[in-house]
């Protein structure tokens, strides 16, 4: 059905081969545009804020950029956590709460005088336990992942409030932790270096291990995945454990960054992190959830919000912008995807419009 080779082997005639050549260039340009449009837009708004009189003084300063990037480290890692199950077409709505619980327990351990290592292990332990619980309920209990993680997330909010009585834990956090959270190495915030390391790790796992391939297979067709011998339950379970582990790493970074734990912060991470994971399909590898796209999306929203707040725009405006960016970004990538598959003539794809006669 794909005519490019069919034309050569079936002797489809010179007409088709000729018109293939004429369309090739715009096709490639279109793909390039799809992949890098959001990055281009990111550069454009960054330049805009650098020259716009209301922000030009503050936006492009080293200090501002360091804050801007450093503030995205935790959310970036949490978004990478959301990305993993999303590839298998499963949603984890508990990631923000996992980060919150981790932050509270880690901060409590630190302020209680426990060592760095033990406090960190307690935090990671939170992620591991919650991730395992999610995985077991979803794969063994066969409860829908959205419902499971929504329920778990609600329970975790209760845990946080019980533990803190709604009061932030900020006393007695060791200086070494705070220095790590706010310090820089070679001009780059240290927390951002952690984000880069985690991003490389996730990229490696998704693109260079069979397990990553299996996640994409599950996202494409769970029943076909089972029929090629993929242990679907195990793959999904490990995806949820990984998501929770990454969320708890994000929670620990947040403790370092904020020199404590605010009980209200956790759950608020969930939606922006998921939004960034969704938006990842709009750039770098269009139509596929991917690590690079997630980072671009995080940075894009951060630059937008930072610039606007420097310009003195009221805070509610950024809520509008974040919402619009998500819908437009994901809508655009879906539209481009449809156009792409129309160009390639979908054969296996069902045509729902035809299967159901229009209602009159």
């Amino acid at each position, binding site marked *: *059905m*794909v*005519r*490019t*080779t*069919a034309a050569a*082997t*079936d002797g*489809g*005639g010179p*007409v*088709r081969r000729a*018109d*293939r050549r004429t*369309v*090739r260039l715009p*096709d490639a340009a279109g793909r390039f545009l799809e992949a890098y449009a959001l990055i281009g837009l990111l550069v454009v708004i960054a330049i805009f804020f650098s020259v716009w009189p209301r922000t030009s003084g503050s936006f492009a300063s080293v200090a501002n950029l360091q804050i801007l990037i450093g503030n995205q480290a935790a959310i970036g890692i949490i978004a990478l956590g959301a990305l993993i199950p999303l590839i298998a077409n499963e949603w984890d709505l508990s990631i923000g709460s996992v980060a919150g619980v981790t932050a509270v327990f880690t901060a409590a351990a630190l302020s209680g005088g426990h060592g760095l290592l033990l406090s960190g292990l307690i935090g990671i332990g939170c992620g591991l336990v919650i991730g395992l619980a999610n995985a077991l309920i979803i794969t063994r209990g066969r409860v829908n992942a959205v419902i499971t993680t929504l329920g778990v997330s609600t329970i975790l909010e209760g845990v946080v409030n019980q533990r803190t009585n709604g009061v932030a834990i900020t006393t007695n956090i060791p200086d070494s932790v705070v220095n790590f959270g706010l310090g820089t190495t070679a001009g780059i915030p240290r927390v951002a270096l952690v984000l880069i390391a985690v991003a490389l790790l996730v990229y*490696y796992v998704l*693109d*260079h*291990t*069979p397990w990553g*391939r*299996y996640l*994409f*297979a599950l996202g*494409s*067709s769970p*029943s*076909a*995945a*089972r*029929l*090629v*011998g*993929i*242990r679907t339950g195990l793959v999904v379970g490990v995806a949820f454990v990984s998501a929770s582990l990454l969320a708890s790493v994000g929670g620990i970074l947040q403790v370092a960054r904020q020199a404590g734990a605010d009980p209200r912060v956790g759950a608020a991470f969930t939606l922006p992190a998921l939004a960034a994971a969704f938006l990842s399909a709009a750039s770098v590898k269009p*139509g596929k959830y991917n690590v690079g796209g997630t980072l671009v999306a995080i940075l894009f929203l951060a630059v937008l919000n930072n610039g606007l707040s420097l310009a003195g725009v009221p805070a509610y405006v950024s809520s509008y912008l974040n919402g619009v960016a998500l819908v437009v970004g994901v809508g655009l990538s879906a539209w481009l995807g449809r156009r792409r*598959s*129309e*160009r*390639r*003539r*979908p*054969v*296996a*794809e*069902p*045509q729902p*419009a*035809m*299967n*159901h*006669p*229009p*209602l*009159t």
Partner: protein
Amino acid sequence: MTGAALRVGGLSKTFGATRALADVSFTARAGTIHALLGGNGSGKSTLIKILAGVHSADAGTVETAGRALDARAISPHLARELGLRFVHQQSSTFGDLSVLENLFLGHGFDTAPGFRVPWRRLRARAETLLRRFDIAADPGARLDDLRPATQTMVAIARALQDQEGAHEGVLVLDEPTASLPAAEAGVLLDALRRYAAAGQTIIYVTHRLDEVLEVADEVTVLRDGRHVETRPKAGLTRAALSELIMGRSVAELSTGTRRQQSAPTVLRLRELHVGPLRGLDLEVCEGEVVGIAGLLGSGRSTALRTVFGLVPPDRGTIEIDGRPLAPTGVREAMRADVAFVPEDRAREGCFADLTVLENLSMPSTGRWFRKGRLRHRAEAGQAAEEMRAHQVKAASVHAPMGSLSGGNQQKVIVARWLTRSPRVLLLDEPSQGIDVGARFEIWELVRKATAAGTAVLVVSSDLEELAGACDRVVVLRGGKVQAELCGDDLNETHLEHLIQEAP
């Protein structure tokens, strides 16, 4: 009745770089069954989608009942107004709902004041409709409880229900018999003949050439997006049809070598009890192709799915090369070198949005994971080689699987298993919805595997395929093997007869 019911003129459509339809014109006369034929990628599905208003044409006209329209302007709504009605192979009916609900879901429920659904009035209308289309079913019956042919007839009745005259408009049937067993297809074809005799114009899309010869009045053949010929059926033979469709003569399926008597047994099923199977005994030798024939629900697919570890057997044993296989799952079956090509290609076979490469290597991905990472380049090289060896037509190994034609998708799925050199290859309806050319190529691939010793067990509703491609065919009835055919006894008529025989 010789007036034109549907006249298509100069229809063209290009997708990106691909010319899907090039200046296609033909006329279907009123009250006839007009077969629309073509291989995968011939443009016939594009043509139908343009008629349905799903795709818009680049140029051309469509004329029904004297009303001519620019083909670029057709929308689903306009297609309805033109009297075009569509029934698709993946039946768009709702199995859990009643016949009545199915009929009126396609039409919109009439409502009494207060949005109440006037069930009694609808029931009376449904009964009239069922009578008009000769359907022996109670409006309250659950659709899944009806025989498959009747379900399709309900879908047809739904599509045609609001035609003013009894048989106005044009009914387009897209492979309605693709998943029907022979007997059911026969019932449906009889019904179609009655509708046509009553004046209904039917455009009939199918890959089954025997049906065309049986039921069509005229045929239109498309190839590579071009109109090849429109002519009356009279005087056409199977061979002539497949030559028109493929543009070259296609060898009939043939086994070449028949079963070697001395070959050792590879797969042995003993006293298998599971689902509809009541003590199935079956043996497949090295290099042998054994077919399973039987009605839908006779346990044909269950037998394959049990061997592949998808269904745990209630009782009985499975042996491969003399070693017992207790299939607790797919992975155990794969470890015993069993391979399975499922019936539902779109849902269970393809990863439509992954690449051809990923689809090819999916069961063996671990093979490419060396020294800590996937060797993408080596994998792509191997995949390109397999594409060539298995005659898969795709833009590249990185093309999405969903962009391939059904026949090429099936070749990819068969290839993904053949590279593992399986001992046992299980094929469930391997050539459903695939043109004769691709079917031939797939069987060539299977034959190559049997030459290397693979034992093949195949389920098919296509008796011609079973008779042509298998060394031996067993007929399932009542959960057991009722008959076995091989050599000169193995032919379509014989098989049909044995399948239909009362238990």
